[in-house]
């Protein structure tokens, strides 16, 4: 087996993923406690509350985080919650712009009063600490058309030390991300924190829930569960119409079966590898 060409494994994985993809079979996922808490925390916010939504991801992790990001924007705006957008990853602002430009008009929301786009801030942890200490110092202008933030009505009630912000939500793909927000803002100013993370980062989060983290949607699985909760009252998608959040949900549900198939293949390979190891142990 030492001469086994690993490219056969890649080919097998490709065949499994492509063949299951053609099935287009959505799989319903029961929401986990963590995802339910993420949803319930937003549901419990009074109308008109202000939430800070931080885009801490880039195209490499958009497959896992973009669906939750879009669903969160829908969820917040539908509940008339106002949103301050920030980003600690340089490639994140285009997602913020595209997301709000597409979704905000559906709920009749206006820029400046219902949401603002403050954009990317360099400095990782230091920048997060700076936002927590004083948002007005961290950002002089918005990212949309360089309007001084003193002229943005949404920020009128925001004080230093996160006062006026009900919840901080981070779409976290790694460093800097949710762990840095918890360290620099959550622990210092006691603002409730929610997050959606990539699968790689998810195992780190269980230790923070529920004391330092009010809820989280981990990986594509968490995203699917959250999408199901958010789209429960939304009309069914229509064939040929522009893509809606319901389409995104169905896409994610279809991915679950493919994911399960790919995982089964990996488990099988691990099993075969171990069996071969033990059976050939004596002959070596």
């Amino acid at each position: 087996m030492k001469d086994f060409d690993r490219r056969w494994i890649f080919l097998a994985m490709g065949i499994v993923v492509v063949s299951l993809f053609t099935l287009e079979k959505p799989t319903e996922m029961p929401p986990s406690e963590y995802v339910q808490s993420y949803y319930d925390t937003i549901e419990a916010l009074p109308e008109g509350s202000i939430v800070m939504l931080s885009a801490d991801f880039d195209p490499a992790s958009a497959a896992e985080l973009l669906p939750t990001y879009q669903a969160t924007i829908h969820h917040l705006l539908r509940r008339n919650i106002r949103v301050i957008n920030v980003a600690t990853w340089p490639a994140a602002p285009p997602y913020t712009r595209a997301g709000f430009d597409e979704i905000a008009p559906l709920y009749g929301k206006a820029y400046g009063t219902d949401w603002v786009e403050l954009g990317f801030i360099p400095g990782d942890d230091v920048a997060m600490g700076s936002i927590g200490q004083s948002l007005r110092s961290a950002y002089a202008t918005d990212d949309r058309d360089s309007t001084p933030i003193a002229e943005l009505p949404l920020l009128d009630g925001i004080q230093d030390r996160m006062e006026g912000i009900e919840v901080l939500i981070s779409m976290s793909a790694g460093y800097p991300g949710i762990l840095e927000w918890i360290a620099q803002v959550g622990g210092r100013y006691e603002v409730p924190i929610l997050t959606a993370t990539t699968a790689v980062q998810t195992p780190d989060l269980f230790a923070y829930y529920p004391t330092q983290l009010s809820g989280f949607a981990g990986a594509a699985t968490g995203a699917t569960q959250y999408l199901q909760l958010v789209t429960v009252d939304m009309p069914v998608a229509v064939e040929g119409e522009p893509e809606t959040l319901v389409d995104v949900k169905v896409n994610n549900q279809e991915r679950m079966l493919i994911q399960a198939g790919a995982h089964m293949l990996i488990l099988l390979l691990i099993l075969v590898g171990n069996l071969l190891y033990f059976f050939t142990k004596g002959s070596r």
Partner: protein
Amino acid sequence: MNMLALQAAEVPFFDWTSTNTHLSGWLICFFTLAIFSFLYKDNPFYKIAEHVFVGVGTAYFALQYYNEGIRGPIVEHIDRATNLAPNEFVTLGGVDVDPTVAIGVRLVAAVLGLMLLSRVIKPSGWAPRWPLALMVGIYAAIKMTGETQSKLVQQIQGVVKDGGLTVPDSALAWSDFMAGSGSITQTAAYLTVGKIVLVIGLLATLIHFMFTFKRGAGLNAVSRVGIVTLMLTFGAMFGFTVLGRIALLIERVENVFTFADPNYAVLGESAYLTPPALITAVIILVLVLRKMTGKDVEAT
């Protein structure tokens, strides 16, 4: 072949305002396939994709950092501060300060930045050491306070509070679960067992890393439990990593399959859709790669 397959009439060839164009479709398919071709072996297609990715990424990041790190906080900030009305203040670090002070602080930051860059001209000079020392000191202080609070104090609080065995008020009674409401993971019994496992696992892992004195048989046994806990943790982390990578693969496949839409057909709605073209492209790629030697790849 892929490019041919994407010559649809209903989608524009190129449009700055839209990502749904033939050109973007071609690029998406080409670069996806080019990157995946590395799984077969290193080749010029992969090299092209790699270099384009690095080049585009560097350009984008450089522009973003210039915009948000120099133009906004220094150029625009100073411009605004110099044009303020009398008796108006600038907020700096949460404190309202005189515009002259604000400009001075930003200029000091700019000078420190330039001192850091002087390393390019004279690597062993004294100038870069000052901003570097300042950065390391500030960063260490910020990290230490935040991390200590979140990863030590609050974590310990979470574990030791009521012996670490508190379950939320919303936890279900076992009788409710037996009566058919909720799942077993929501019951107080399940959560309590989970907490016990957590506390035992935590203590055993800590004991595993205790090297202060020679361990006896008892502590060695506990240490073994710690090893098992660590292995389970690493296994879970590996599982989640695989989960993430598979999600990315699925997204790529989904993205490429988007161009199997009838809109992208060459001759009408049913003929020459993208998948056949993709398969042909892959076959051509494999044939080309089989003929290539390591030297050819190096030459590219």
